[in-house]
Each structure stands twice: as structure tokens, then as C-alpha cells.
């Protein structure tokens, strides 16, 4: 297992480097410039000067290698300094956003909490809803419960989140006034009241995303359960006189989880990627909103850094999914 992990990690490095180069070239080639957010009233010569100061006009490979150095040398050093109070990174140029002129990593760190709480909660909630629904739908295949579950899941797939978000706002924020329509990122949970406030402001975005995630995962769980419910070992378990609850929850679910766990693990990078539309609708302003804003503003350092981190996460969770697979299923061993 260890060598398998190491091997995969080793192969991941060239892959990731290549991906990073491609992302860089792609974002650089993409039309749009960091000037698009600047009003037309700013004259062209001033624009050119601003671009120059940002370093936009350097040749692309110079910028790429500078980014590489910043990402792999400077930023880790900054982190080191931060933890151990040293000052190795003094005077080194960090990756700086063209839009806000602040280090991209700081922005990412700043955005992490709301992304993790909102998107993370919705993912966890989605999974928690999806699993029982999937299990029960499969156990009672073609029952009313199953049919309705299928129907709702399909709706969950097909209705875009901007639409569900809007409907929720109109119902719960405008008409019922239960929940705020705008997420307050500076809210700190210190007591029961602020906890309630936090719960209320998370309610709607979490609902929207949980519906979407649950729809997908419940389908996987259902089909996996269906496959395993007919397996021979289930019959063996019944022949031992075990109760249905134990047969299903102990024997079938654990086996059915094997493929589903990898699906769930592979979905986790998308938490960090953020749910772009939902974040915008409710102004959660997490990483997804950061990325989309950066892309619209052609903020190359931010886009590059964020997408590269996502790429790392994708590769990493691919690996984690494989390892989980190996751990859950004793038949698979990676050596």
C-alpha cells in the first residue's frame, strides 16, 4: 500500500507540472485582459503602464517559471516562516493577484472557512441524505418510495442551481422571511445566537447544493445496493438467522459502499472548487466565487494558482479514492 501510494505520488509530479503549464498557457491565451474591470475613463496610456507594472507584458515563459518558483519555493517558505517565526521568505515576491494586489494564498486562506462550512456541509448533508435514500430505494425497488426518489433525483439533476436558488430566496427570504438571502462571511460563531444566525444563513445554499449532491449520490448508492442485494453472501447471512436490519446494514451496505465511497471521494475536490453559481446567488464568496471573479478579470496568477490547487486535489483524491477502495475491499491490495 505504501509503495503504491508513493509510486502514484511520484507519477503525479510530472503530470501536475504538465497540467500547470497547460493551465498557464490556456489562461494566458484566453481573450480578456486584467484591464476589463477598469472603467473606460482610464486612458489607454495609463492602462499600458498599469499592465507593465503588473508584469503582464513579460514573455509567457518567464512568467510561468516565476510562478513555478513562487508556488514551489516562496509560498512554502512563507508558510514555514508563519509557523516557526523565521524569516527566510523576507523580500521574496509572493504570488500576487492582479486584481487586489494581495498574495493569492492569503485570499485563498481567507475564503477557505466559508467554502468548507457551506459547501462542505452541503456535501456531507447530501451524502447523509443520499445514503439512506439510496439504501431504502434499492431495498424496496420499484416501490412508491423508490419511484418518487427517482423522480426527485432527476429533477435535482435537470434544474440548474441558479433557478433553485432563486426560488428558495423568493420563498424563504422574501415571502416567509425565515432566512437571510445574503451570506455574512464576517459572522463569528461565539454563542448560541450567533450559531443560530450562522445556521440560518447557511440553510438555503446548503439546501440547494445538498439537493444536487444527494440526487447524484443516491443514484449511485441505489444501483450499487441493487447489485449487492442479490449476492450469495446475503443469502448466507439470512441463512444464519440474522435479522433483516443486520443483513442489510452490516452485510450489504458495507459492500455497496465500496464503489460509492470512491464516487464520494472523487467529489470532494469539487467542494474546494466551490459551487460557483450557488456561491454567487447567495454571495457566499468562497473559492468558487474567487475563481470565477478571477477568470472574468483575467487575473492570471489567481486563476493559475487556484486551478493548480484544484488539479492537485483532483489527483490527490483520485489516489485517496483508490486507497480507500483498497482499505474497504480486502480483496484489493496495492503492492
Amino acid at each position: 500500500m505504501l509503495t503504491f501510494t508513493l509510486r502514484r505520488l511520484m507519477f503525479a509530479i510530472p503530470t501536475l507540472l504538465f497540467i500547470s503549464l497547460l493551465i498557464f498557457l490556456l489562461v494566458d491565451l484566453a481573450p480578456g485582459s486584467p484591464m476589463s474591470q477598469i472603467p473606460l475613463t482610464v486612458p489607454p496610456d495609463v492602462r499600458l503602464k498599469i499592465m507593465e507594472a503588473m508584469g503582464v507584458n513579460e514573455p509567457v515563459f518567464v512568467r510561468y517559471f516565476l510562478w513555478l518558483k513562487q508556488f514551489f519555493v516562496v509560498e512554502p517558505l512563507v508558510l514555514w516562516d508563519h509557523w516557526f517565526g523565521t524569516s527566510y521568505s523576507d523580500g521574496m515576491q509572493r504570488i500576487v493577484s492582479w486584481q487586489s494586489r494581495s498574495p493569492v494564498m492569503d485570499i485563498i486562506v481567507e475564503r477557505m472557512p466559508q467554502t468548507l462550512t457551506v459547501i462542505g456541509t452541503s456535501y456531507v448533508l447530501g451524502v447523509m441524505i443520499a445514503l439512506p435514500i439510496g439504501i431504502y430505494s434499492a431495498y424496496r425497488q420499484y416501490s412508491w418510495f423508490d419511484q418518487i426518489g427517482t423522480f426527485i433525483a432527476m429533477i435535482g439533476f435537470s434544474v440548474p442551481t441558479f433557478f433553485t436558488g432563486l426560488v428558495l430566496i423568493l420563498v424563504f427570504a422574501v415571502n416567509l422571511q425565515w432566512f437571510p438571502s445574503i451570506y455574512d462571511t464576517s459572522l463569528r460563531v461565539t454563542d448560541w445566537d450567533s450559531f443560530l444566525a450562522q445556521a440560518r444563513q447557511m440553510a438555503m445554499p446548503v439546501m440547494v447544493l445538498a439537493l444536487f449532491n444527494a440526487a447524484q449520490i443516491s443514484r449511485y448508492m441505489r444501483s450499487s445496493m441493487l447489485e449487492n442485494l442479490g449476492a450469495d453472501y446475503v443469502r448466507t447471512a439470512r441463512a444464519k438467522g440474522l435479522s433483516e436490519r443486520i443483513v442489510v446494514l452490516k452485510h450489504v451496505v458495507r459492500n455497496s459502499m465500496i464503489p460509492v465511497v470512491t464516487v464520494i471521494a472523487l467529489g470532494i475536490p469539487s467542494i474546494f472548487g466551490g459551487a460557483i453559481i450557488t456561491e454567487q446567488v447567495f454571495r457566499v464568496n468562497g473559492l468558487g466565487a474567487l475563481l470565477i471573479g478571477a477568470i472574468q478579470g483575467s487575473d492570471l496568477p489567481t486563476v493559475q494558482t487556484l486551478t493548480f490547487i484544484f488539479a492537485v486535489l483532483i489527483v490527490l483524491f483520485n489516489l485517496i479514492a483508490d486507497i480507500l477502495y483498497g482499505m474497504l475491499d480486502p480483496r484489493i491490495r496495492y503492492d
Partner: protein
Amino acid sequence: MLDAKPSVKLVTKLVEVKDLKMYFPIHTGLFRRHTGDVKAVDGINFDIYQGETLGLVGESGCGKSTVGRALLRLYELTAGSVTIEGEDIATLEPEALRKKRPMMQMVFQDPQACLNPRMTVAQIVSEPLDEHTDWSADQKLAKVYELMDAVGLNRVFANRYPHAFSGGQRQRIGIARALALNPKFIVCDEPIAALDVSIQAQVVNLLEDLQEKLGLTYLFISHDLSMVRHIADRVAVMYLGRIAEISPREPLYADPLHPYAKALLSAVPDPDPSREATRQRIILKGDVPSPSNPPKGCNFCTRCPEVIPICREVKPELAEVRPGRFVACHLVPAQNNNAAGSTSGTTVQKHNQQGEPEQ
């Protein structure tokens, strides 16, 4: 019988297998270094004569299928040579190999799995014709019908899908496919294992009829020893990638020489309660060792009831211990030393194919 009725004509070797090795590599570690092998077939020698049926028996996982597949070069051999009609299959170029394929065919173990569920019988049977002839559609169809008649399938079934057939019928489709290009040599890899007793007999009879009619040569792989006794002229007993014994049928069944062959034969239940009650069985203890890590010396030494110290040290070679009987065992001393290691040194006489006495 072999001795009783010596053949008048000198029989020719169709297939010559020399020191065949088939290893499946195991790669481990950070750099996927080649650290070991599954020695599925570990250096075996035998010949198959024109028109005979060689039975290949042994327990599950001992490498029977691997031998069968290697013979048709469905695997790239690790070492050794397989000469069929004077041409070494192991070294043929892909195109030459493709040209050679019509003369050697295979019938598979699982009649369900070896037929593409989305092709009709006609499509399945004519696939070899599509590949190796440039006949018109009508010619092919005519040949397909002819083949279906030959294996006893109603022509009406030509447009059906495999799922609509019983196991025995499916196996006939597989046989028809194998016959399409008029092969000389057919590897039958457990063709009856998945079938019902009553249907096994139908398939075996069919194979025998075809052999008689077309002069085919079979390698008949099975672990059903009673069926092998019925169909094979000579039988090879394999254990853990090596051949333990090759003998003509009757002497083997009457008097197995290798301890493993003895155990194997004694384990076959007899459908006669009175005989079954009195029969003495040799029950082997323990499990088959892993083919990736076979024991030193004789590979049967871990389970052999008659094991002696030398077995654990020295690998016994296959040697002719009685006329036509080859055994790899230290306990069975060779009578004729110069024949050690190979069957090629002696002229094994073919037992009469047609003249099986009608007792």
C-alpha cells in the same frame, strides 16, 4: 491395448512442445520492478500425434488452460517452442500467425461466456470465414448451414442469439465455429465442465464423431477424469505447472505411477454404492502451493503421501519408465535411461484409432 494391437502405420507428430514455459510476471515496488513470476507453466514437454486425443488433467489452477492457450499462442510464450506441422508457433510474425490460425482452433470452457451475446449464431459461426476467406455472403451462409448440420444444430436457429440456447447447444455453436476453417488441431478447454451430466454425453459424442469424420487431433483439457478416460488416447496429468505423468489411457487408469496421479484417480467417486463403499481413497492433505512460489525440488513434495527426502531437494525430470509412459518422480525409477527428459527419443506407437475393439 497399446501393446496388444500395434499399429501398422507409422504415426506422425502434429504438435511438438519443447520446454514450454509460461510465466506471468509480478511487478512490485516503487518502480514496478519485475520481482517474481506466477509460474503457470514451468517447462513442459510433450507431443501430440496426428489424429489422437491427448487428455490433460489436473486440479484447478495447475496451468491446464494456460498450456492450451499457449499452444495456440494466445499468450506470448516465456520460453520454449511449440511446433505445429513443422512450424514454430512461438516465433511466427503476426501476419504469418494469422495465416496459420485456420489450422488450429479452440473450444472453450464456458459456452455462455465464449459467445458474444450480441451476435447471432450465423454471425458467430461465420466470423472465422469473414477473417480468413473472401467468399461471398451466400457462400459463407452455405458453409454456416453445412457446419450447423455437422454439429447437429437446426438451420432454423441461424438467426437466434446465444441466450436462446441451452448449454449443450451453445457448446455446439462453439464447436461449429472452431470447425469453420477445417482445422487439424483443436484445443478443447474443459468443453463439458459447465454442462449437465446428460448433456455432457451429447457433446463428447459429437466430438468423437467429428474426430472420426474429419480426422481431427484434440488436446482435451478436463478435470473430469471419467470423461477423459472415455475420450482420450493418452493422458497427461499436470500438477502445479509441470507434467507429473503422461501415459496411454488404459495403463494410467489401471495403474497410475505418479503419487499425484494415484491420488487424483482415487478421489473420483464411483457411481456404484457397493464399490464406492469398499474403495480405498487417498485423501491429500493441505492446499496447492502458490504457483508464484513453488516448493523446491519436486513440486508435489508438500502434499505427497510417499515423500522421501530427495523430493525436497531435487526436481525430478520426466522420464520414460515403461514403454510409452513418462513419469516425473524419484520413486518411479526409469527403466530406460536414455529417454530421460523428452518423449522425442522413442517412437511411441499410436494405438489404433479406428480399430477400437468392440467388446
